[in-house]
């Protein structure tokens, strides 16, 4: 073992998670891969996992968390990557640069891509969470999401760091209404973070019961329609609600705090204001401005800079830096509208297109088609031979159904869509859509089939 020369430097930030308590959770012994410099763990919700992770990270090593349900092959593949990366990193810089928490990004096919979160930034994030939500020894957080998801950094790590208690619900049992109800009744948590699917699970589990012990509810990871939010407000009558926006690469960056009434009643929740230390920019047609300088009614793509950005991705055994701009801003690939002092989500960037000067959200177009009841699946795209930009939509026949004529479908869709958002060319698919690895319609294949007709 080579001794690296120590240079005088400030003490590296440390994770202190031992003060908190974990209840419930799983006690399975699993086949983790670990050494001094790295650890690859299945994200089983127990004390030992947290302790081992923290230890590796505080030593300046790399700790990777994989889903508890991951296959052997997947685990091995991640382990190989992390080992390779940790080794080359150690050779290059020793442990001077601090620990790295590696979380796999969702939805990748092929070799998994791990987001590399540096400990220094992580500690700052945990501090923010603790301060904003007043976590302390009396906090009881219900952790619903798996611990390989970045959301757990707030509902588990930040709570443990403040000395609070985490009620670790087994992610696999969330649809067991009785199980969830018992957790709520028995432990009376004060804090819960939900994503749309886990909120649904809670609403189902509760029956008509209410849980006044909950003082703060954080909603993240997606848009929830007003009816579900109204149900949530009934479920947690004493709670303050928070809509949080972020991504694994940058953690959380925007927060909107609302009363139960506002949470339940607003048509669409705003994205919120920047979290302390975070900078938000809007790129409107090439012009990039900080949010507070943007003109009224600016549509643009969101770019952010947070104090807890990932260093990059561990991929094929080495670190590829985050794809940031020259001024270190991370493009979120989401469109937003800044109006009346509020930031509103407008859709994924690649699904919002400009047609003859008007913004069209392709997802809304597809939803409008589905709402007519005349199609099964719908898939829309734009062909842009300017000036003749044209909207295309392929569709399948509904499961229970009779095929529709193109005219019927157009007439039905025109009831809810403005003329500029109507598809100009319709393509009926006899069978189901070809799907890609994520289970979503495979647009390139659909397009080439249409073009070859």
């Amino acid at each position, binding site marked *: 073992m080579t001794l690296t020369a120590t240079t005088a430097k400030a003490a590296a930030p440390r994770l202190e998670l031992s003060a908190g308590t974990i209840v419930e959770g799983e006690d399975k012994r699993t086949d983790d891969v670990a050494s001094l410099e790295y650890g690859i763990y299945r994200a089983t919700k127990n004390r030992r996992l947290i302790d081992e992770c923290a230890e590796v990270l505080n030593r300046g090593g790399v700790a990777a968390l994989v889903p508890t349900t991951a296959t052997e092959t997947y685990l091995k593949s991640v382990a190989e990557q992390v080992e390779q990366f940790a080794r080359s990193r150690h050779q290059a810089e020793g442990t001077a640069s601090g620990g790295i928490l590696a979380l796999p990004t969702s939805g990748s096919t092929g070799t998994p891509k791990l987001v590399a979160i540096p400990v220094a930034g992580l500690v700052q994030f945990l501090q923010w969470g603790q301060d904003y939500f007043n976590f302390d020894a009396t906090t009881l957080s219900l952790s619903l999401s798996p611990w390989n998801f970045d959301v757990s950094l707030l509902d588990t790590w930040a709570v443990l760091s403040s000395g609070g208690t985490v009620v670790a619900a087994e992610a696999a049992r969330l649809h067991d209404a009785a199980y969830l109800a018992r957790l709520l009744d028995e432990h009376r948590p004060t804090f819960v973070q939900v994503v749309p699917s886990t909120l649904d699970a809670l609403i189902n589990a509760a029956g008509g019961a209410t849980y006044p012990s909950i003082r703060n509810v954080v909603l993240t990871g997606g848009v929830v329609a007003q009816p579900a939010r109204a149900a949530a407000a009934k479920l947690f009558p004493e709670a303050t609600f928070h809509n949080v926006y972020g991504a694994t690469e940058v953690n959380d960056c925007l927060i909107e705090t609302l009363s139960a009434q506002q949470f339940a009643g607003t048509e669409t929740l705003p994205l919120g204001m920047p979290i302390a230390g975070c900078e938000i920019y809007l790129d409107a047609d090439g012009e990039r401005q900080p949010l507070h300088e943007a003109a009224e009614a600016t549509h643009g793509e969101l770019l952010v800079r947070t104090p807890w950005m990932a260093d990059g991705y561990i991929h094929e055994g080495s670190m590829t830096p985050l794809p940031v701009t020259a001024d270190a801003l991370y493009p979120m690939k989401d469109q937003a509208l800044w109006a009346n002092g509020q930031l509103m989500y407008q859709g994924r960037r690649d699904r919002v297109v400009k047609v*003859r000067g008007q913004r069209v959200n392709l997802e809304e177009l597809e939803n409008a088609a589905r709402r007519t009841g005349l199609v099964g699946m719908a898939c829309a795209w734009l062909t842009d031979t300017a*000036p*003749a*930009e*044209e*909207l295309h939509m392929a569709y399948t026949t509904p499961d229970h159904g009779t095929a529709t*004529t*193109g*005219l019927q479908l*157009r*007439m039905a*869709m*025109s009831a809810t869509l403005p*003329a*500029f958002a*109507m*598809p*100009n*060319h*319709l*393509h*009926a698919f006899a069978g189901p859509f070809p799907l890609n690895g994520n289970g979503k319609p495979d647009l390139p294949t659909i397009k080439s089939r249409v073009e070859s007709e």
Partner: protein
Amino acid sequence: MPTINDVKQYIAETFATDITADQLPSDVDLLSTGILTSVTTVQLLGWCARTYKIPINTIPINPDELKTPEGIAGFIETNRTDSVTA
């Protein structure tokens, strides 16, 4: 063959290729159903001009007239200068 049938045929062949001419109602709003756009309307006018000898560079055009197949047929009848077969 009545003008309106030619119009429907042209529209079905050129723009809404998934519909046949006889499926197209004479009073369907072509713009609100996405079959025509403000840009392809210009293309349609070019076809009218060539086919029916309409001097589109010099006559005033009301876009509301061109919203339906029967409106387009009416516009053609009013402005055509080719010899019309009885």
